[in-house]
Structure formats: C-alpha cells, structure tokens
C-alpha cells in the first residue's frame, strides 16, 4: 500500500510530498521549480536554456560526476523545461536517498552556469529536432541565440529559491526520510534575489514545423481536479480524445481520413492540466479552416454520445489514472504520459502539489469520475470545444 503524505516541512520552506513504495528498487527525488511569472517569449527562451545548462553541473557535481552519480540506478538524470516550470529528477538505487537529495539540492541552489555551459546549451537547443508531435506540444517559437548569460543567471536567481521549490521523495524510502532531507538541506531561506530584469523581445514570428506536417490544436482552460465541474470536463476529455473509440479517432481519422495521429493531451502547467486536442496532418494548401471543420465535426459527434460513451470514458479514465493505459492523456514529463512507474507516481504527486497546494491521489479522481453522468459530460464537451482556442502550426513545404 502506498501512502501519500503532503505537508509543508518548514513555514517558509519548500512544499514537500513523500511517495514511499516498499516494493520499489530505487529512490526518486524530484524538484519542481516554477518560472518567474509572465515571461515574454525571449524570457521563455532563457528559461529553456537554463534547464539545458543545468546539465553542466554545480559546485559539487561536475557534468561528468552528474552523469556518473545520476545514472547509478540505470535511469539517467532528467532536467525538463516546461512553459512555466522546470522539473529535475534523480533516481538512485535503494539506499541512495542521500546522494539523490545532494544532487537535487546542489543543482537547485548552487548550479555553476558558466558561460561555456550556457553557450553549449544554446547550441544543443538550436540543433535539436524534437519531432513534429513534441514541437506541437511545446509550441514556443524561441530565439535561443539571442539569450544572454546574464538573463539565464538572473532567471536562476529568481526562480531557484528554497521557498519556490516543490520537492518529492519517493520509492524505497521510509516515511519521514524525505522531511529529514529537507530539514538538512533546504532549511536555509535563499538570500534575497537580485532585482528581476525584464528583457525586451522581438515580435514573435510564426512558428513553423521543420517537417512537412501541419499540426492543429484546440486548447481549453486548465483543470485542477479540485473544482466541482472538473469531473464532467475530465470525462469529456476522455470521450473526445483518448483511445481509438474516442471522438477524435473515430471522426477525424476513421470517418474523415484526415490524420494518422490525433489525441487529447493534458499538459502540466503550474495552474493545472491544460486540455489540448491535437492532430497532425501532411501539410497542404487545402488546410485553411481545417481546425474549424474538425471542431464542428466533433461537436456534431457529441450529439450522438450515449451511455456506452460514458462507460468507455470512465473505464479509460480509470485505467489511465491507475497508470495502466499507454494512451493516458496526463503528461507528467516531457517524454510521455503518466504510467505506474515509481518515477511517474512521484511526478504526479509533485505536479498536483505544485498546482493546487495539496497532492491529489489519483484514486480519489477515479472515485469522483464514477459519479459523472452523460448529460454533464456532453455539456462539458460542448463547452470545451466552444471555448477552445485554435493553435495551428504550419508545416514546411
């Protein structure tokens, strides 16, 4: 049985959650660090560079030592930048809680961020080709080459402060061991940050995929899983975009032959899970208005939903939240959706704590969904689609 214990370890310290799992053969330590608020595009570029430059190490852990110590459990150190937060994850063999905590503490509070590391990070990001789907999900059009060293270090000083952190300790640990690490390593409040410097930026040019593929997206407002209406909205997400009997697959792929890949994604942000209905299609000059056509077709499909649709949505939600569904829409990292791995369970706990101030047990969400009814789900689906914003990223010709 896995217990979920969320609490504030110190009055002004980080938020902490423990996810002990006696069956795990590893320990996991994660930090979630929100970005400074209201970032411009140029500032967002610096935020991405910062995450990449963190791989270069800290005062105590050089790049080589990070790779060595960070992969002892066979799971490499992971530092992922999202639109408005960074996630650091260290996995160690059982008994390695202290080492994992040291690495996370060192990266969060004493990263080196040398000029060379930042230059290397810019090079890595500009030469990266994450593929069409990841480009669509991470739809920022960022001019990394204009980022300055000062910007990156200023962001780090602003964001990486003990009181901003959400920390997760999980896997093969005893209850209370995470708190002890927090008291030992994250008790000191960070020194007052330098004044935040804002950076002017060039007007955003239109983002374009490197590949000849256009992606279309309908994006709704975030779900926190704490509001009364969230159960209906979540069921609507599953009915619309999860699985091959979901409306997107049935309508956009099977009936209209428009796409190969189409799905709903619940994308993590500091304010909740962002419902995003995305489909990709070979670029053509016939695509103008396709997003509206798709939305209208999906709205029409909602009218046909019956009790079977509701049953399917509940079943897919239950298997997704149990970590048993490879088509789960909840993304807990930038490489894929939530699963039952100890790393993903830790990420879920940390993300929900960061989003809402309280870690949410997925089982309670399943319980709430079981009470949803067909009319509520259909109404929520119509509202999601009606209020969604369009995002189209054209493909290269």
């Amino acid at each position: 049985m896995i217990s979920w214990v969320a609490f504030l370890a110190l009055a002004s310290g980080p938020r902490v959650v423990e996810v002990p799992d006696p069956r795990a053969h590893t320990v996991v330590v994660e930090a979630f660090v929100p970005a400074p608020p209201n970032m411009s595009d140029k500032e967002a570029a610096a935020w991405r560079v910062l995450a990449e430059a963190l791989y270069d190490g800290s005062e105590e852990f050089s790049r080589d030592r990070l790779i060595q110590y960070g992969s002892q459990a066979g799971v490499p150190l992971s530092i992922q930048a999202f639109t408005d937060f960074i996630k650091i994850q260290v996995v160690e063999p059982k008994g390695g809680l202290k080492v994992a905590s040291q690495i996370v503490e060192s990266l969060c509070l004493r990263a080196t961020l040398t000029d060379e590391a930042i230059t290397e990070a810019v090079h890595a990001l500009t030469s990266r080709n994450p593929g069409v789907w990841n480009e669509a999900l991470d739809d920022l059009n960022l001019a990394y080459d204009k980022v300055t060293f000062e910007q990156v270090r200023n962001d780090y000083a602003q964001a990486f402060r003990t009181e901003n952190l959400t920390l997760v300790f999980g896997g093969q640990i005893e209850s209370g061991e995470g708190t002890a690490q927090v008291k030992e390593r994250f008790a000191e409040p960070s020194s007052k940050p330098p004044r935040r410097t804002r950076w002017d930026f060039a007007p955003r040019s239109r983002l374009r995929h490197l590949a000849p593929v256009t992606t279309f997206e309908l994006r709704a407002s975030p779900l926190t899983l704490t509001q009364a209406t969230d159960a209906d909205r979540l069921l609507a997400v599953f009915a619309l975009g999860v699985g091959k009997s979901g409306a997107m697959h049935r309508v956009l792929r099977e009936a209209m032959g428009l796409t190969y890949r189409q799905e709903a994604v619940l994308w993590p942000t500091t304010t909740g899970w962002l419902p995003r209905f995305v489909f990709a299609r070979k670029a053509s000059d016939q695509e103008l208005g396709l997003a509206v056509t798709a939305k209208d077709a999906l709205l029409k499909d909602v009218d046909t939903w019956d009790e079977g649709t509701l049953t399917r949505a509940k079943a897919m939600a239950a298997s997704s939240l149990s970590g048993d569904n490879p088509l789960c829409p909840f993304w807990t990292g930038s490489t894929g959706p939530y699963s039952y791995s100890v790393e993903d369970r830790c990420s879920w706990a940390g993300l929900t704590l960061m989003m809402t101030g309280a870690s949410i047990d997925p089982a309670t969400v399943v319980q709430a969904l079981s009470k949803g009814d067909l009319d509520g789900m259909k109404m929520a689906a119509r509202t999601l689609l009606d209020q969604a914003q369009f995002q189209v990223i054209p493909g290269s010709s």
Partner: protein
Amino acid sequence: MISAAIFLGACLGHQSRVAIKETLPNGVIVYAQRIEGTTQMAATLASVSKDQPETADSHGMRHLLEHLVAKGPDKDVDKGVEGRGMVLLAETTRDSVTFSLHGPKDTASMAVTVLGQLVSRFDVNESELRKEVGILDQEMVLRSWNLLLVADGWRKVYGADALDPFGDPAKMTNFTTEAVKAGFQSLANPKKLCLCVAGDIDPESVVQQAREVLGGLTATDVTPWSRPEATDPALVGSSDGEAACIPVSGFSESATLASIGAGFGLQGWLTGSFMVYTPTARPGLVTVSLRTGRSWKQAADRLKGREALVARTGMQQLKEWLTETASDPVRLSELSATILPLRPGFDPSRVSHMADDVSEEQILGEIRAVCTLASGGSQ
C-alpha cells in the same frame, strides 16, 4: 493434444512467478507468465515473418495489414476493449507484426478472445483499402529523423534488400484487395503466431483459453529464411544527423546485450543522442544517432579517456532495462512474442538475469570499436 509444454517456477528478486510455455498442435506458441503484484495485464499476439522477407513488390504489405487487422473482423474491436479500460496497439517491425492489448489484470480472458478474433476472420473492400493507404501516407510524414537514419543504417549494414518495414504508400496503392486478403492468410498462419500474456494472471487458464481460441486455425508450411550475419559497424549521415550502427546477433546473445549496453552508455554521455534497438531473434542493429551540429568524430573526442565510465553507465542502464522488462507485463509480453517463434529455447522468465551474462569489459570493447570507427580508425 499438447506437443510441448514447459512449466517454470522461479523466484526472481521480490516477485515469484509461474510461467507456462506450450506449442499447440497447429504451431501456435503460447506463453503465459504471472508477475505478482502488478495491476496491469498485457497480451501480445505476434506474427513473426519466418519465411522470405518483403520484396519490392510486397513492400509495406505487412504494415498495411497491421492497420487493417487491428480494426477487428467487424471493425469495432476498440469499442469493446476500451469499454473495459483496455487499449489495443499494433506495430510492424522487420521481423514481426504485433497486436497488443494492455489493460487491468482482470481483462486477460477478454484479451485472448479478442486477439484470437483478429486472426480468425478478415475482409477488406476497395474503399477501405484506399482510405487506409491514405492514412499510412499521413503516418509517413510523422516519422522522426532518427528513425529515418536507422533505416539508412540497415541498408548500409545489411544491403539494399533490407527494406524498411514501413513501406511506401505510393506503391501500396497498387495492392489489390485479393493480394491483401492473401497477405492476411500468410500473416495469420499459426506456424508464425505466438501469443504471450503477462501480468498478475493465472497462466493455466490463459493457456487453456488460448488452446480453444487459437487451436482451430489451419496451418500451412513456411519456407524458413534467416538474415545473414553482418559484422562491420558503420556510420551513416543525412542532413538531419549522423548515426553509428552496430550490427548484432540475436537478442539473447551476450554480445548483443553488450552492444545494447554500449548504446545505452553512449546515449547517456552524449547530449541529444538517441539509441534505437528493436529486439529480434535474428541479427539486428543497434544505432546511436546524433542530431546535426554534432558529428561522431566530435563525440569520440568528447569520450576520450572516459570510455570506462561510459561502459559503467551502459551496464547500469542495461541492467535496469532488463529488470524493468522482466517486471513490466507490456514489455515482457511484447519481447517474448517476437523472440520465441524464432528461438523456442528462449526463456522469458530469465530476462532479469540476462545482464549476468555480460561484462563491463565487453561493453567497453563495443564502445571503443564505435569510437575508433568515428575517429577514422585512429583511436
């Protein structure tokens, strides 16, 4: 009648397992393994290409069939399985087409029934065929740059006949419905089929049900074919990047595992690199791709003096990968289903111990070979 049965009981790590392997009289191989404590079940039905690989004329037929068969004989298979919280996924590789059902542990019985239905009956009409070729055309543009490099690597190492299993949608438009139906008969030949189910399940009841569901399929003879071994590693490049390609033997060989370990180690130490290996009992390929802006020569320079550390990282990741594979129903069922038809002696319940057959020295040797190749033979 049971032609062969092996009962395995083992205590591996913290999980006790019971596994049953059986070959049905018509040739279907069935393997079921209990992994206690998992909430999930996975069932994979693989059709392994035991006979002649695709030719220029049939290129892409198996991939097209994968799409069409996965819909089910009445085109409604997803509705039923998703109502139980299950998901059906399908994949085509060089040596197999797999259909996998993942779901809660109490759905194993339904999974076996559904997978059996997929290979028991098939029909397709002209418009369905054309629509699916159109969808494959949409799929083709989504292929990542590193998978395209992998395809180049196969051609360079194994020759021009090593056709990419994706196929060419433009050529698929020439397929007739009759040819596709004949392709199904070959794909559903029991002598090519292997069903593997893993999770917190009862192996005996799974095997019993498999006998009922798959035992009635009619077999036809296949002419065995084997891929010739390749030995020399190679570098391939495109405008998108560069890949080091290491030819390997079958999956369970220790030399193959050493190459996979080397791939893990290199991926861990080279920023932005991708390692790809598709498990097969036949000779295969481990590739490590670097995106444009990084050359393998630069990578070899970066690794100079660090090779032993890279080998250690590779060993750690290989162990973790095998441990996770052994305890994850999805990974275990997919791996077993693709390996067993060509290597019946393969024991999936031993996967977590396979790293014991590999030494860090072997991995180091593979890493040095790649670095020497990347440096133009100068290291």
